[in-house]
């Protein structure tokens, strides 16, 4: 059962006379009840993709092609006003990458909350506040926080508050974009604990977690999608990605992880040579070919098709059979 199904989605930034092909023919689905991780290098298009998945698209970004179906509704054809009224916050919420700076400094937390509810319900202010206090208690966040200003909260606390507020209306899908990248490890763990609690309590049904940190995905994701230069190159269960990565780029990412553990020490740490390509003018054929240690002449000429190597496991690489 899928909650979200995106097919052949292209979303480009139009600048001057050309396009930044940040999301280029991506098909991806999110299962009901599942946590999907999205990983890749900075600039590969993760933030653009997840915003596109919920149709949060504004110029210069444009949806060029593709369909997106969320909970049975084709949201790729909806107007922005309809999305605002019926979809965002209710069916899907996002905690954007810059969420830590997004709170207005002159408003107390409780005022943000009132604004959100005011838009979607006709509950009275008092009812709203008592409901939110209850939710905060459920999530082990002190309700006193509601009466503080954003600058009075630490980075980790702010992130947890933003997450709690984004899920007040019990959206089916929660998207979190690099929620822990700016935090130290102990704070990271608290934020992730909150997300897991929301999921276990079924306040949210499914989640897309964006990060460049595979060790964080190990802790929570059921499945991982690997993105490179605007394309999804591999999707598999978390175990398959970490133990038997098939795409050469996935393998490069896994082998570059520096976590302090004996398996990693034994395996040794390597890195991917070169830099990610410029998406204004991406390489021909397989976009990874200039950095791929296995590249063959065909890789430069022909874009690799997406191959379903098993149920629930896809890879886009010409040589995938030789790696299995």
């Amino acid at each position, binding site marked *: 059962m899928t909650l979200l199904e995106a097919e052949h989605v292209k979303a480009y930034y139009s600048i001057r006379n050309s396009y930044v092909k940040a999301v280029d023919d991506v098909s991806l689905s999110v299962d009901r009840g599942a946590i999907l991780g999205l990983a890749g290098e900075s600039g590969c298009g993760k933030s653009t993709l997840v915003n596109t998945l919920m149709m949060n698209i504004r110029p210069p970004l444009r949806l060029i092609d593709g369909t997106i179906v969320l909970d049975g509704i084709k949201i790729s054809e909806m107007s922005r006003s309809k999305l605002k009224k019926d979809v965002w916050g209710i069916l899907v919420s996002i905690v954007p990458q810059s969420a830590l700076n997004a709170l207005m400094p002159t408003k107390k937390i409780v005022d943000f909350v009132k604004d959100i509810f005011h838009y979607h319900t006709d509950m009275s202010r008092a009812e709203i506040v008592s409901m939110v206090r209850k939710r905060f208690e459920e999530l082990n966040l002190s309700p006193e926080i509601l009466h503080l200003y954003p600058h009075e909260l630490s980075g980790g606390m702010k992130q947890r508050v933003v997450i709690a507020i984004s899920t007040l209306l019990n959206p089916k899908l929660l998207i979190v974009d690099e929620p822990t990248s700016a935090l130290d490890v102990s704070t990271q763990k608290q934020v992730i604990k909150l997300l897991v609690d929301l999921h276990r309590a079924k306040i949210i049904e499914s989640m897309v977690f964006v990060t460049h940190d595979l*060790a964080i995905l190990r802790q929570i994701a059921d499945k991982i999608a690997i993105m490179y230069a605007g394309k999804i190159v591999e999707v598999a269960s978390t175990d398959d990605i970490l133990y038997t990565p098939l795409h050469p780029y996935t393998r490069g990412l896994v082998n570059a992880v520096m976590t302090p*553990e004996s398996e990693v020490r034994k395996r040794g740490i390597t890195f991917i040579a070169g830099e990610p390509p410029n998406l204004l003018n991406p390489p021909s054929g397989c976009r990874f070919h200039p950095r791929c240690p296995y590249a063959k002449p065909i890789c430069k000429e022909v874009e690799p098709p997406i191959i379903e190597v098993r149920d629930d496991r896809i890879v886009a690489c010409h040589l995938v059979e030789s790696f299995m």
Partner: protein
Amino acid sequence: MVILEVENLTKIYVVGLLRKKEILAVNNISFRVSEKEFISLVGESGSGKTTTARMILRLLKPTSGSIRFQGRDVWSLKKMEDLKWYWRQVHGIFQDPFASYNPLYRIDRVLNQVFNLIGDIGADRESLIREALKEVGLRPDEVLGRYPHELSGGQRQRIMVARCYLLKPRLILADEPVSMIDASTRAGVLNLFSRLRDEYGTSVIFITHDLGLAYYVSDRIMIMYRGEIVEEGSPEEVMENPQHPYTRKLREDVPLLYRKWSGF
């Protein structure tokens, strides 16, 4: 051979105009760094790592304590030639490379400044610079001629490492030098520090909150907590047999690739 000795170093910041408040940022720390040694200073945000580095780099006056480099008290150096000697030998890479560049100088100039310290080397500067940029994984034609704000955070950090490559100092203080470089290419930049050590005997004090990174790059790890060094040892000792409660918590909270946090 010991090249840096830090003894009872303390820094108290005084903040506030009317009601003055004291912040004990670094509390009586002592340690030594040997030639060719790669030491990591690991701790959470606000634990005093940057403050320590700034005092060693002569950017911030200690409240008390001493710092000796090759036997000479760093804060007693006064003459220009002595200071130049120090800057030549001890080089800093900062947490936010944007803040440490003059925004009006192109990258060429940022790199050329290094030669003011080295003096005339009789070689072709331009080709030395190009070579250093290639070493850190940058395409010279893409970065030379551009201004710092036109580069990504990761590219700016690579430029800082390229500077070290030109200068070849005796001691590098690197404050989160790869935090903005993608994990997939980070090991390549870290190798450059090891190569400087192997080829020129450079020592490195590496500041990070990433215990994993410290585990792989360092000979010794010092754990800093609330202004104090609470634990110190080889990476294996610190990881496998942590003594201080803070180190234990840190180790439990680091996400691993092949093990889940308990309760998750």
